[in-house]
């Protein structure tokens, strides 16, 4: 069994990403949270540095790297600004939908702009009827003189008000067994009948926009059908796992590291009873528990990403990583708040934001309950 060891190129990449995040993102992270604002200017910079198209092949304008490098970027961003990391993570959902399921024409048309960050993408599946109940979608797409007419409402969609290239699923008929069949469409935001709806005021991850997408007689051509008719459900479930849950695990990991680093700094600097907090065994226990969560989440996350990248199914491993890293982020934030005492609830310190961000990661890409169902299902079978 080999140790978890990144390549020299991956270490260089982490260093380069960290430098950018510490200089350009960290100083504004608290403000983005307070203002509940997605920073378009920073996203454009991230696009130029290759983050937006990290796993997109160079012939479509991407960096041509893989999912491990993507996870490193999301961990580093999540360390200081989990909301912005969420926006990038969701952008990758739309990007991979086009990359993995698009025709050559669709890839050539959309990927260069998406990989360079000139345009933002997203994936819209969830509806008021539920997110995890993918088959419960009510939005419809009906053929009409060689076009598709889409009607319906998507909700809790990240990048809802920023994405220019939306991948949207809708019910397009029934399969041979009479079950609802779904298809995916690429819908540009300028299409008539399509508009972003209300924006949510979220508890955390506020550096990304989240809201409704409304389709009211939204007409798109056959060229917008993505991945073939009737394949929307399979595509969505695959993207949730490969991109969504691995991404959320990496963001959770970043939040745990934030708690660990900030907790250690505070414990070493804060003097109580004439000595630093770090000398108190009760505080050492808290630090140790956060560290253990970090190490375990790190191993689970990069192992799951590596398995998926190597071609394995890895649904249970990815679900376990997502479950552990996001729940671990909540535990880490609580422990950091505990060890900081009164300072833990003062917004001058970022730990309160870490807590809100961590809590919000739980419901993104499938709740902890759903993750446990996936793990249990695979284990029992």
């Amino acid at each position, binding site marked *: 069994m080999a140790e978890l060891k990144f390549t020299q*190129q991956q270490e*260089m990449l982490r260093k*380069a990403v960290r*430098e950018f995040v510490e200089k350009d993102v960290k100083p504004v992270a608290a403000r983005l949270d307070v203002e509940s604002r997605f920073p378009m200017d920073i996203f454009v910079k991230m696009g*130029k*540095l290759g983050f937006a198209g990290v796993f997109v092949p160079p012939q479509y304008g991407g*960096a041509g790297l893989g999912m491990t*490098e993507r996870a490193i970027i999301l961990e580093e961003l999540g360390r200081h600004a989990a909301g912005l990391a969420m926006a990038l993570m969701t952008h990758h959902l739309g990007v991979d939908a086009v990359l993995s399921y698009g025709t050559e024409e669709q890839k050539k048309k959309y990927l260069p702009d998406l990989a360079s960050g000139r345009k933002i993408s997203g994936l819209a599946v969830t509806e008021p009827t539920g997110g995890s109940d993918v088959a419960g979608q009510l939005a419809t797409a009906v053929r009409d003189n060689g076009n598709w007419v889409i009607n319906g409402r998507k909700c809790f969609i990240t990048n809802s008000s920023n994405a220019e290239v939306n991948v949207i699923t809708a019910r397009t008929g029934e399969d041979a067994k009479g079950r609802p069949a779904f298809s995916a469409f690429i819908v540009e935001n300028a299409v008539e009948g399509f508009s972003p709806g209300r924006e949510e005021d979220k508890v955390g991850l506020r550096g990304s926009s989240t809201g409704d997408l409304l389709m009211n007689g939204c007409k798109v051509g056959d060229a917008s059908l993505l991945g073939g008719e009737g394949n929307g459900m399979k595509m969505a479930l695959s993207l949730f796992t490969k991109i969504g849950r691995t991404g959320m695990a990496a963001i959770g990991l970043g939040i745990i590291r934030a708690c660990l680093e900030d907790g250690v700094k505070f414990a070493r600097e804060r003097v109580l009873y004439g000595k630093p907090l770090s000398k108190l065994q009760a505080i050492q226990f808290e630090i140790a528990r956060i560290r253990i969560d970090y190490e375990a989440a790190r191993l689970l996350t990069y192992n799951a990403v590596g398995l998926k990248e190597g071609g394995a199914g890895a649904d249970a491993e990815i679900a376990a990583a997502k479950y552990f890293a996001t729940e671990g982020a909540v535990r880490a934030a609580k422990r950091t708040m505990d060890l900081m005492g009164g300072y833990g609830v003062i917004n001058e310190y970022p730990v309160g934001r870490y807590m809100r961000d961590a809590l919000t990661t739980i419901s993104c890409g499938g709740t902890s309950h759903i993750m446990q169902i996936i793990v249990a299902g695979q284990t029992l079978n």
Partner: protein
Amino acid sequence: MSGFHIVVLVKPVPDPGWYDRVEIDPATGALARQGMPSVLNPSDRHALEEALALQERFGGRVTLVSMTPESSAETLREALAMGGDEAVVLSDRAFGGSDSLATSRVLAAGIAKVAPFDLVLAGNESADGGTVHVPSQVGELLGVAHLVNVIRLEVDADGSVRARTRIENGYVEVEGALPMVLGVRREINTPRYTSLMGVIASQGKPIRVLGAEDLGVDRSGVGMEGSNMRPGKLSRPGYRRKGERVKGDPEETVARIVGILRAEGVLG
């Protein structure tokens, strides 16, 4: 002529984030650097940025030259990820213990190996040495014009140069022509970030290692033997605070406190 050949002098230095863990060997007075990660000298990044901006404008080549142990060559890879075409590492046991002049001799010999060059850019000073000797010494050894404290640089296609250098309470505008050796300050530009594409490209860029024999340097002029500068006594400053209680009636107390602050240079 299609662009310039620009040589950028770069140096891996101990990561400033580890400065609080620096230990001094009491016997030798040397810094114990074992286990400390290296980073590219901060002001060298500005020199590299200036070179890359000129390369983008005029084309040409950018070569990084560094006197550093071969084990630090990976830091050069990070510089190549920011930009530049190749790196040359000047590494030899004989170079160990070089003072700034001996270092400049090695660097000048290394630059001569990659000549012809049009411009040599260097960070004004290194974060660990901070002498500001090297750019001028290298310029003298190469027999070309040199300046330090450069805060603005304009180069035309014909090689004419206008440079602004920082002096106390102002600046000096200098006009000249390439070739030149320039030491730049941080104010000159904002270094670019390293992109993922840059990281990937850096993996295929050549890093050549040249030793004393390759350079043909006179061993008596480099390393400990060729260095006249010796570090004096190094000691760790104490951090203990000294308190003084001033008592008396308010007027006397205030006068006394003001007197103390004046004596310490806090008040004028």
